[in-house]
């Protein structure tokens, strides 16, 4: 914090002057609601992406709905994971927010830096691994959902080729590819997964191109770990099936979407804000999945009833813990065998399982 005793009279004058100008301009702004908790969100994409950032913003709205006039929320969208992130976060901290959710991996170091400067403000960072006294981390076990959709894809494919559009080779994405493949192999040993990296979280043009390339290579089912609806729309055009990502994309491709892997942050956000209100907030590491409702699959459609029943059985198994996507023996691409992976191994995964037609970049 600034040393207030060092404030000179000139500073005070300046502040007063600025204040009066502000009033003159009719810019007194919304009356400062001192007793309301201020919570803020930082998004990597536009809230209108109908994918990842959209889903986080749904969580923000859930907080507003649930806690009503006890909170004031705000957000900054389209914040690049570069030099601008720290400023956006610090601005929110200076703005009097008591808890700030930074929702993309690339905000990790900026979040930690700002948190050091504002020890009284709470932060929660999504999908990273650095924590502090006032910085929590949270993420969802997306891979659980990917295991389920892998099974559906393994059952539904006729060409035995599945197209997978991916963003960046970070562990979250790689473990998703592997879980998908393990799910597919559990019902169809001949299945192949072809992969295209688009090196972006949100690029409808590139994602659509990748979808077309994969279909050209014989894929009859598409899945994606990128945030736009473009691949599903291509799938619908070409009359094949696919899966939505981050949010339910059914309205963009009602004939193509079987289901989607949606992130439901509502519960987490409401809980975190409530804890700040109650003064019980502590730095935690949250990594929940289907059992806690953080990963949700919307109703399965466009497939025969037996496939739907199978998927629902698998989901129930994952929820009660009887099915573990990374349990049992797993053969890596290079032929070595690993067993019953723990969280640490999943969180730092940088290898493929056998049968994936790609070489991991980097």
């Amino acid at each position, binding site marked *: 914090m600034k040393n207030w005793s060092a404030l000179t009279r000139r500073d005070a004058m300046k502040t007063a002057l600025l204040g009066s100008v502000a009033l003159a301009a009719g810019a007194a*702004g919304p009356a400062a609601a001192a007793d309301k908790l201020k919570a803020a969100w930082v998004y990597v994409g536009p809230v209108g992406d109908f994918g990842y950032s959209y889903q986080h913003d749904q969580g923000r709205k859930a907080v507003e709905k649930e806690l009503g006039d006890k909170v004031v929320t705000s957000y900054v969208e389209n914040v690049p994971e570069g*030099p601008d992130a720290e400023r956006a976060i610090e601005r929110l901290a200076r*703005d009097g927010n008591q808890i700030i959710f930074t929702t993309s991996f690339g905000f990790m*170091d900026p979040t930690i830096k700002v948190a050091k400067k504002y020890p009284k403000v709470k932060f929660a960072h999504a999908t990273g691994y650095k924590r502090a006294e006032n910085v929590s981390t949270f993420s969802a076990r997306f891979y659980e959902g990917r295991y389920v959709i892998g099974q559906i894809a393994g059952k539904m494919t006729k060409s035995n080729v599945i197209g997978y559009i991916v963003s960046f080779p970070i562990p979250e994405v790689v473990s998703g590819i592997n879980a998908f493949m393990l799910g597919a192999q559990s019902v169809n040993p001949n299945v192949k997964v072809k992969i295209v990296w688009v090196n972006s979280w949100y690029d409808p043009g590139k994602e659509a191109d990748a979808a077309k390339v994969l279909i050209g290579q014989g894929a009859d089912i598409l899945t994606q770990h990128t945030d736009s609806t473009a691949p599903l729309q291509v799938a619908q055009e070409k009359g094949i099936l696919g899966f939505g990502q981050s949010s339910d994309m059914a309205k963009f491709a009602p004939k193509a979407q079987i289901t989607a892997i949606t992130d439901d942050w509502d519960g987490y956000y409401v809980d975190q804000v409530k804890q700040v209100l109650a003064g019980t907030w502590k730095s935690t590491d949250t990594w929940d999945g289907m059992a806690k409702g953080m990963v949700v699959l919307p109703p399965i459609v466009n497939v025969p009833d037996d496939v739907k029943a199978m998927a629902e059985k698998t989901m129930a198994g994952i929820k009660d813990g009887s099915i573990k996507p990374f349990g049992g023996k797993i053969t890596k691409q290079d032929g070595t065998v690993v067993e019953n992976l723990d969280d640490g191994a999943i969180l730092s995964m940088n290898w493929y399982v056998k049968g994936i037609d790609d070489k991991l970049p980097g």
Partner: protein
Amino acid sequence: MRFELEKRSERSLVMAWASPVIAVVATMITGGLIFAILGKPPLTALWVFFVEPFSSLWSLQELVVKATPLILIGVGLSVAYRANVWNIGAEGQLTAGALAGSMVPILFNSWQSPLTLVAMLVLGILGGMIWALVPALLKVKTGANEILVSLMMVYVAQLLLDWLVRGPWRDPHGYNFPKSVSFEDWQTMPTIGDGRLNIGIVIAVVVAIALAVLMRRTIKGYEVRVMGEAPRAGRFAGFSADRMVIFVFLLSGGLAGLAGVIEVASTVGQLQPNISPGYGFTAIIVAFLGRLDPIGVVVAALMLAVSYLGGEAAQIALGLSDKAARVFQGVLLFWVLACDTLILYRPRLVFGTTPEAAR
């Protein structure tokens, strides 16, 4: 009836000074209308956009931090464009400079002395120069279009950065996430005060002044202008067009490289897949907005920084969409360029005959 722009024989000095003011006023009115249509209080919105960035020491610092790379790249590009050489690839030169400079902290991680930073900065300049030399030499030797080559080199640099941070230069303790080790102490730019403000701005301003002197007071500056405006006359005067291409590419590339290494050594603090939100491209706008004059570029860079920070503040304070903030930036550029055009040209409505009919 048609509309014509006719070159003015004389430029009004008063209007040259008044034009930016008129542009800003016009932007305020247009912007206010847009905000009103969006259902936001126009005066509050304008206040947040234009005044808030100046209202605290912190935001002033951030303003300067944002403007630093734009100044460094913009002044270099303004000289190149004056020489009628079109370096569009500053973003790639920035990336190459960041990569070259980062070799020091990544490959010699334990070396800590003031010389570490000097080595980083020098390597950053060299990296940018080498990247810029490719389009320059190809233009000189084969006549290849420098716009295309320099632009394509951007993607090469970005993919190289991407590969390095996911592969050989990845932080071994970073859980396979794509980033290098964090830069510490003398691997970073010394800061001024308690915020993110660093000596990068001092370097940027010194460079801008030096280039202003170069362009106005030296033979070299004269040569740049002659080769840009009248290359034939320049050749008669014994100036070499080829050497000019190489000179301005080295200059603008080196400065973009310097901006790149300063960014990774300050605001970013490490190498990662995204190190710049497109500074190399934004600087092209800055160069033109600053009328290809180094001092003008400094003003233009600050102006663009205000619009970025103002846009961010408006999102938070008013819930204004990021898109609306960009539209507002566009409106600002539109009025500035429109007013500039009207200083040089007189709009005229021509009634009746078309040129064909008159013949």
